[in-house]
């Protein structure tokens, strides 16, 4: 693909993604009072965020574990999750919890690599 075609691909991908994010907000604003009046729709919209987080989490773990379901693949993930949980419990912020999990994951990887040498 030459540079000018790639530029068009990037521009159209960007414009389309922006419209995907923007148009439902415009539609929602026009009908917001009606939506607010119906409890069922409101509950469904409220659940989309948490459901999206669970779905993203499931997909990312599936990608890390499923291709090679072995102790070497699962143990660092378990260590990383424990690190996030502990980081959230002790340090309370999402950023530090994430860092604690990444650190635990990296240490487990390093320990497994050292043990197999």
């Amino acid at each position, binding site marked *: 693909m030459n540079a000018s075609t790639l530029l068009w691909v990037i521009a159209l991908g960007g414009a389309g993604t*922006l419209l995907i994010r923007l148009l439902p907000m415009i539609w929602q604003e026009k009908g917001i009072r009606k*939506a607010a009046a119906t409890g069922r729709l409101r509950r469904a919209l409220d*659940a989309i965020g*948490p*459901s999206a987080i669970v779905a993203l989490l499931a997909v*990312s773990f599936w990608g*890390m574990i499923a291709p090679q379901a072995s102790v070497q693949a699962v143990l660092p993930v378990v260590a*990383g999750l424990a690190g996030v949980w502990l*980081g959230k419990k002790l340090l309370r912020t999402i950023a530090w919890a994430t860092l604690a999990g990444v650190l635990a994951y990296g240490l487990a990887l390093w320990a497994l690599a050292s043990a197999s040498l």
Partner: protein
Amino acid sequence: MKSAFLRGLADSLSIAVGYVPVAISFGLAAVYADIPPFMAVLTSVLVYAGASQFILVSLVAGGAGAASVVGIVLLMNLRHLFYGPALMTRLEDERRLPLIALAAGLTDEVFATAIGKLETLPQPDREGWYAGLQLGAYLSWVGGTAVGAYFGYDWLRDSAILSQTLGFVLPALFFALLLEIRQLVPLRVLAGAAGATLLGMWLLPSYGAIVLGMLAGALLAGRR
């Protein structure tokens, strides 16, 4: 509004921690695929949707046609259709920012973080806080891409463990977000979303499974 904006900017650190390593990886992947560094940065500036950017790079590297690359990128980002309406229910009816400014940075992670936090903020602060959150996340993504595209190659070339560890950053962020928001909806909704997503992984590409999980959670919550 100004202090709320600055608080949002500070809270975007949790997203930046996840974004910077992935954005560096994206910059690296683009350069590996013979995409010029400035085009890699431009992709992050304009598309700003992580997974679809990686797919864009791999399709371009694989010689796919322009129309199919654009189509697949948009298909992958269709899940964002559901984010705006859910976000709008948590913002004030009287907005000061144009909708396009609220929509431009509505990524998975910005949405997930905003949904968890907006409920805890007073109504007048929510829009400013969200604008700060969006801007911080966006700058970290674009900045990380630039670092990866222009400087990252030398850093990661010799460290397999570091490269692999960076792959855990986004899952760790999602798990931390789940711990933050797990009280917002009933457990059966979260379990249903997870079950539907895992089922979807057998049948669909991953972006389809994500949409399936979101819809399953929304349906379960709507039924009460």
